[in-house]
């Protein structure tokens, strides 16, 4: 087993002397070294058992202090986790509420007769307001997912049919598919692929990739979703589009938080730049891998290889 406690401690945001993993190691080393040391010391030089008892008590006191620091550090970590959950709830409720208010207010204002009589430039202003509300909405929704995937509880698994989930997602996307004039083809073979993974998270992966494949496609473009078994233990999911593609200079940054390729920003200014980061994080947390190949103006293929269990 590789000891990665230094990087683990860094990722927890704790100094080494407060990091439970490091302190457990220190405790273990002190315990073993002192036992061996005093065994030989007692055998050769110390005749009085009271001195041995005194030294053992001193070592116990040191170990007690370390154990106390470990307990406090664990309490801090629990507290930090709770703060993260609270933040996620605040984001999901308190930030979403005013955005929904704005969205619905704008929708009801646009229905008013007087608004329809305003000069065309006003229509453009309303479209800009709508676009910016949509941007905020997308960002908040993606931040909620980012916060969610940090919580280990959402990774609870159960068996489900991957192809059924894909069909459901495609059905939910049908208004966007129709509005974008895109043809979506399913190539799922065999018809049923049962996997044991967190269903909601897999749905989020498919939704994000399909959303990109439609949004960054060309009019009358095509999206093809392919699923196959890879041996008995893995499954392959491919989402292929005939869209705008990814510029070569953007490829290395594609999965970074908030990164957006220049042609993607031109095509759709409302994206948050979190979608592919979310996809990669989920796939890797589930023990899978994600690859892509892309040609500018020709299209992109995302390939995910995922363990079935």
């Amino acid at each position, binding site marked *: 087993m590789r000891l990665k406690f230094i990087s683990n401690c860094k990722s927890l945001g704790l100094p080494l002397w407060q990091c439970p993993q490091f302190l457990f190691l220190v405790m273990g080393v002190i315990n073993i070294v002192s036992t061996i040391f005093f065994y030989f010391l007692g055998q050769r030089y110390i005749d009085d058992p009271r001195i041995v008892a005194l030294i053992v008590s001193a070592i116990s006191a040191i170990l007690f202090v370390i154990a106390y620091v470990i307990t406090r550090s664990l309490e801090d970590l629990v507290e930090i986790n709770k703060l993260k959950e609270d933040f996620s709830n605040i984001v999901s409720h308190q930030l979403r509420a005013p955005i*929904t208010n704005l*969205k619905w207010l704008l*929708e*009801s204002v646009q229905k008013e007769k007087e608004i329809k009589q305003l000069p065309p430039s006003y229509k453009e202003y309303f479209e800009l307001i709508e676009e910016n509300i949509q941007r905020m909405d997308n960002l908040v929704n993606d931040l909620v997912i980012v916060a969610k995937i940090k919580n280990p509880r959402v990774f609870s698994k159960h068996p489900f049919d991957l192809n059924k989930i894909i069909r459901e997602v495609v059905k939910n996307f049908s208004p966007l598919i129709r509005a974008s004039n895109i043809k979506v083809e399913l190539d799922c073979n065999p018809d049923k692929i049962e996997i044991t993974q967190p269903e909601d998270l897999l749905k989020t992966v498919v939704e994000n990739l399909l959303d990109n494949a439609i949004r960054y496609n060309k009019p009358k473009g095509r999206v093809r979703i392919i699923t196959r078994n890879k041996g008995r233990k893995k499954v392959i999911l491919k989402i292929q589009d005939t869209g705008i593609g990814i510029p070569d200079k953007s490829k290395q940054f594609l999965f970074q938080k908030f990164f957006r390729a220049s042609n993607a920003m031109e095509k759709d200014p409302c994206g948050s730049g979190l979608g592919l980061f979310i996809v990669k994080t989920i796939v890797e947390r589930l023990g899978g891998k994600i690859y892509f190949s892309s040609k500018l103006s020709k299209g992109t293929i995302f390939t995910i290889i995922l363990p079935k269990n």
Partner: protein
Amino acid sequence: MKKILFIEDEATLQKTIGETLRKEGYKVLSALDGETGLRLAQQELPDLILLDLILPKMHGLDLLAKLREDEKTKDIPVIVLTNIENPQGIEKAVSLGARAYLVKSDYKLDEVIKKIKETIQ
């Protein structure tokens, strides 16, 4: 005229949805907190209740449970309209007989009104 009770602490939403429903020909009763909502539901026996979950004075799910315990209000259809998206909340609301659980940010105003109309019929 059918009566809808809208229990929601956001005044802006009370105005937006309330006005839209009034234009559609419904009588809309408003409550800005859970206790007032429960009292109005028991007094007015509306044809539908539109219920937010995070409410002052009484949580929406507690309110829903109280409505189901009361013989007079137990059959009133309830639509939960919230921004809380956790599976436990959805499960609890459905087990208490909510007809629909709508996450506000996922819907357009038109879609919410359509759902209300379908449920009240």
